């Protein structure tokens, strides 16, 4: 599509942003942290991660950050993910499946409503560090 018009340039910018936004240190509306320790991986955390990724891509969101972290400590309830909406306390979800991910994404991340059925609890553990 050579020879851009000004509108096309803006469209191209929007497109490009959809894939590069994660490099920015800007403010994200929501942060998803998939716990990927050995146990998490064994329990299928990979699929959960991919499911979240697909949701973001499908919706073309640039304000939702997807990260991973190590073992969350509760190995029996893996795969787990922590979702944090800016300004709110983080929520840990347990025993995730791809189907649950879709629901959580729709209701919690997009709708702002915690899906209590899958949630372990709100807030994080207290630590001495940091």
């Amino acid at each position: 599509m050579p020879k851009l018009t000004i509108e096309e340039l803006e469209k191209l910018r929007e497109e490009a942003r959809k894939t590069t936004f994660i490099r920015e240190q800007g403010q994200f509306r929501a942060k998803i942290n998939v716990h990927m320790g050995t146990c998490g991986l064994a329990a299928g955390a990979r699929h959960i991660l991919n499911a979240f990724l697909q949701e973001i891509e499908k919706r073309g969101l640039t304000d939702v950050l997807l990260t991973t972290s190590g073992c969350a400590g509760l190995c029996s309830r893996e795969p787990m993910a922590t979702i944090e909406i800016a300004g709110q306390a983080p929520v840990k979800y347990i025993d995730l499946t791809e189907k649950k991910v879709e629901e959580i994404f729709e209701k919690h991340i997009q709708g702002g409503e915690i899906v209590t059925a899958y949630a372990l609890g709100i807030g994080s553990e207290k630590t001495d560090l940091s």
Partner: protein
Amino acid sequence: MAVEKEKLYRVHLMVCAGTGCVSNHAFEIKEALEKEIKRRGLEKEVKVVTTGCNGFCERGPLMVVQPGNIFYQMLTVKDIPYLVEEHLLKGRPVKKLMYQPPEEKTPVPVLSEINFFKKQVLVALRNRGLIDPEKIEDYIARDGYKALVKALTQMTPEEIIHEVTISGLRGRGGAGFPTGLKWQLVRNAISPDNEKYLVCNGDEGDPGAFMDRSILEADPHSVIEGMLIGAKAIGATQGFIYVRNEYPLAVKRILIALDQARYYGLLGHDILGTGFDFDIRVVRGAGAFVCGEETALLASIEGRLGEPRPRPPYPAEKGLWGKPTCINNVETWANIPVIIDRGGKWFASIGTATSKGTKVFSIVGKINNTGLVEVPMGITLREIIYDIGGGIPGGKKFKAVQTGGPSGGCIPAELINLPIDYESLTAAGSMMGSGGMVVMDEDTCMVDVARYFLSFTQDESCGKCTPCREGTKAMLDILTRITEGKGTEEDLGLLEELADTIKEASLCGLGKTAPNPVLTTLRYFRDEYIAHIQDKKCPAHVCRSLNVYKIDPQICFEKGHGCDVCRRNCATDAIIGSKGEAHKIDQTKCIKCGVCFDVCHFGAVKVE
């Protein structure tokens, strides 16, 4: 050039592919990463992006993991499998590959927390490490060509020039001429056939300076966009980017960027459908420092000898092929899009009263964090050297910093609180120059440094005018004499006399500034000259003719048991002795190369 639709990845690995890191095998790291990611089946989630220079060259090869801004440094191919498994698979950043400041015990994981990066304000380098310089889409995503749209659709040439004028931007190539004023001059200049040219000076010749290279490598489109805006402002239809041929990577990336911009119609005829025409050609330099001087550069673009000509007429009136020509340096052009996008006032809010905005410096020499930094004008030398540069290695004493390359001068340790701007540097006898900073510690001989810079300018003098051609040679002869212990006190007077005349009488900037390193070292470090002349000693043990290498027999025998390493490494068989006994140096054979000093593990070799 078909554009593939980009996929969303959860992780971007930003591998630095600037010249420094490439020299450190960054591309091998990239290949290893890709191989390992594939092996682990992560190729759909993790993307490897090669970026331009990140600035922290000392620690290369470098990689930043996004999101999270996790900074890895000094990577080797061996580290990669572990790094991929731990960080990308298990989500556990690898501490041992992170940067650990010398004075602290714990590594710093996040890039923005590292002192080297913390104090920097990125304007010209705004995209470094964040985009793939070979992808125009990455640049566009970060508001690239937004300023161009604004300039083309909402601003008149006068408004553009006005915006640049109120920004207070001054030429970043060295002389610090107000950019807005220069543009106005070129705009006002009359060209018989209405043709005007625009040139980007990327002939970065100062040894120890590499900011232009870095910008061209990391963010070529910012320069192209700046030139497009400049072209609209002054009414030019053709631009040239003059790049040193010693920077092959920069040449390659700028050529790719030009192709991409042309593909999208951001260069050529009827840009973005606004009826504006402009195109850019790349001209490679061929190895002559003097071509950084604007009239010499223009001659060289025309295919003539890179020899300066008298000014006036200035290029703004009569430049390339006699037409009005606007020459700005790479960094200046890269600043333009931001100024247009965010407004001149915003830019002017950074910096000092007379020096606005930020400046890119390369800090090299005897410093812990060698690299490229962008800082607001007015920052003190101390902040740059200690806070950003991490101080002097090995706990040595800071002696001086040389700014402005061969045209600049040495600023002594006493002036460490000097704020960095055009005026204060000039007052201190140095200059801003293109932004090279060479840090020197107590082991640096200032006479040798002066001699070094003079040998550089003498070697690079084009030979046209008498003072520069003959004068620098005469000065170099004297300095060489002094470093060999053959100097006399009259020599200092003659040096000063020569320096004054060369400064006043030379044709171009190269000659006019060539004596600066000598003049400033004479001003601040006269005692070192005197030591060379009167005591025939080099206090820093750098001037080899004045050094004497000796082996302490006691240490050699007791600690090293006559290890014989020095004898085996000696180039001239000047070391006498055999294994198990104390060694000796035959001074008649010694060429003072210092190898024995370097190889002795026991400190038995001494320099006097």
